[in-house]
């Protein structure tokens, strides 16, 4: 099947290796030539000994809770400039500056509907009532006495991004409302079994202890499948922005169903039709119909490097990398196009490839310096293929704010500047 001009990945890798060797001989490719530099800061460069080697550094314990290097101070969450109301706005993860699949806790995206509550865990309770044999109230200590589990899952806001312009300039502006962490807590199934479900229990209505009292109805099947009551994130207790001291993790379902600061679970026969599952988080189609209870986040991917706002230093080797994820399970493959979608080649997937988690992909690329449009396309284990924006809009129109999982192309100009190709 592999035509010589179809560039299957193996050929590309061989070409890269040949190119790198040739480039290294010709003009210096990935490293600098071994010669002394001059100019500002050169005192710390070879062959000199840098100043930080000439005096002892800070003592152990100078930061009892460690912070990133001061030289990384620009890697922060990204807040839209025109956010009308900060207590119910969102901040985005700086996806283009992150590696791997785990989002650092301080950079996990935020979406709040009534600000971030400051909760004393000693005064926090989880109420479980409704269609149960025995209504229960749990302290945080009670919750942590249940058998625990840890799982890695992404959480993504339902509207990431919208269908209409203006589209974001950077990967973070565009789809920064997704993050991924290792969650530790107790399977909701275990807690529900402790109370005992009545036969007509079909939904669990979760309520957050924030000023929005965020309320969503979750189907009982999902609660018994893989929903978690999580108290830790990446090894430490949840951050206040992520629901401290207790949140739901509903793997693969739209972000706001993963109710933060959860204080109440009411088991019901029917959904509650809260504002956040009727007025909001329903998908208005072009014909005026509106889809309700659209829970799953479908397969999606984005190239995070090189991506909008960055600039390629020049022709030569550049690794293309990004993230892919699906609410329906594992990512099966990611394809890359370098020619405006005319042809596609398979990227390498970095292990581990986990269910309903971010998956890192990589693709070796030798840029010849001519303008290009690059994009990624994810396929998940159900066989579902990430669509183009045109394919999505043809079916759904542009009214909806939610569930846009379109392929997103980046345009690379001849001078190396990268911009959003959809703008």
């Amino acid at each position: 099947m592999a035509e010589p001009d179809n560039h299957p990945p193996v050929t590309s890798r061989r070409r890269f290796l040949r190119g790198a060797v040739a480039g290294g001989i010709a003009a210096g490719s990935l490293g600098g030539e071994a010669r002394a530099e001059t100019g500002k800061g050169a005192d710390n460069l070879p062959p000199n000994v840098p100043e930080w080697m000439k005096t002892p550094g800070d003592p152990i314990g100078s930061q009892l809770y460690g912070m990133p290097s001061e030289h990384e101070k620009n890697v922060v969450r990204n807040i839209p400039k025109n956010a009308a109301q900060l207590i119910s706005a969102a901040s985005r993860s700086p996806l283009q500056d992150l590696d791997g699949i785990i989002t650092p806790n301080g950079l996990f995206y935020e979406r709040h509907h009534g600000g971030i509550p400051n909760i004393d865990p000693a005064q926090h309770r989880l109420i479980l009532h409704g269609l149960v044999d025995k209504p229960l109230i749990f302290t945080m200590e009670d919750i942590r006495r249940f058998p625990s589990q840890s799982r890695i899952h992404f959480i993504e806001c339902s509207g990431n991004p919208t269908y209409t312009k203006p589209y974001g300039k950077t990967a973070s502006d565009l789809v920064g409302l997704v993050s991924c962490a290792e969650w530790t807590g107790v399977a909701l199934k275990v807690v529900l079994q402790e109370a005992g479900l009545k036969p007509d229990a079909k939904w669990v209505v979760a309520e957050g202890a924030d000023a929005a009292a965020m309320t969503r109805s979750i189907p009982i099947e999902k609660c018994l499948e893989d929903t978690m009551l999580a108290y830790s994130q990446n090894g430490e207790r949840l951050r206040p922005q992520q629901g401290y001291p207790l949140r739901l993790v509903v793997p693969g379902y739209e972000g706001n169903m993963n109710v933060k600061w959860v204080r109440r679970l009411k088991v019901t026969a029917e959904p509650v039709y809260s504002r956040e599952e009727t007025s909001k988080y329903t998908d208005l189609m072009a014909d005026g119909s509106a889809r309700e209870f659209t829970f799953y986040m479908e397969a999606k991917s984005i190239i995070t490097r090189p991506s909008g706002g960055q600039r390629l230093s020049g022709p030569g080797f550049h690794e293309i990398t990004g993230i892919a994820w699906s609410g329906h399970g594992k990512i099966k493959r990611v394809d890359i196009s370098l020619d405006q979608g005319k042809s596609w080649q398979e990227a390498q997937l970095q292990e581990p490839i986990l269910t309903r988690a971010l998956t890192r992909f990589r693709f070796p690329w030798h840029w010849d310096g001519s303008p290009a449009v690059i994009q990624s396309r994810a396929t998940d284990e159900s066989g579902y293929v990430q669509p183009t924006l045109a394919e999505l809009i043809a079916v759904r129109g542009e009214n909806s704010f939610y569930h846009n999982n379109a392929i997103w192309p980046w345009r690379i100009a001849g001078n190396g500047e990268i911009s959003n190709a959809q703008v």
Partner: protein
Amino acid sequence: MRRFDRRAASLALVLVGAAWHVSAQERYGIGRYWPYAPTLFDYIRRAMPLNAPQSLSDTDVYAVSAYVLHLNGLLPADATLDAKTLSALKMPNRGMFVGDPRPDVKNPACTKDC
């Protein structure tokens, strides 16, 4: 202050789903979009006013709900609202809500000569 007024004006438009110019946001106005009236009571009761949620009495919440429904042309100005009348109110857009048909979009996954 101007900024606040503009926000208040835009909120008023959302509340009534003004007909003269239907922007994407206004399509979601209560009278135009919401499928169930008790959702309004529930939301006001647990999340409004924004600066002091859960501060209104149930009677006040019914009064505010009735006022907003009146602005949307769904109740007369002198209407009295209680649990029974609120849940009996049929919202105009209720029949337009459908289930989730996804996967609804198919990418043929072309790999060459696309």
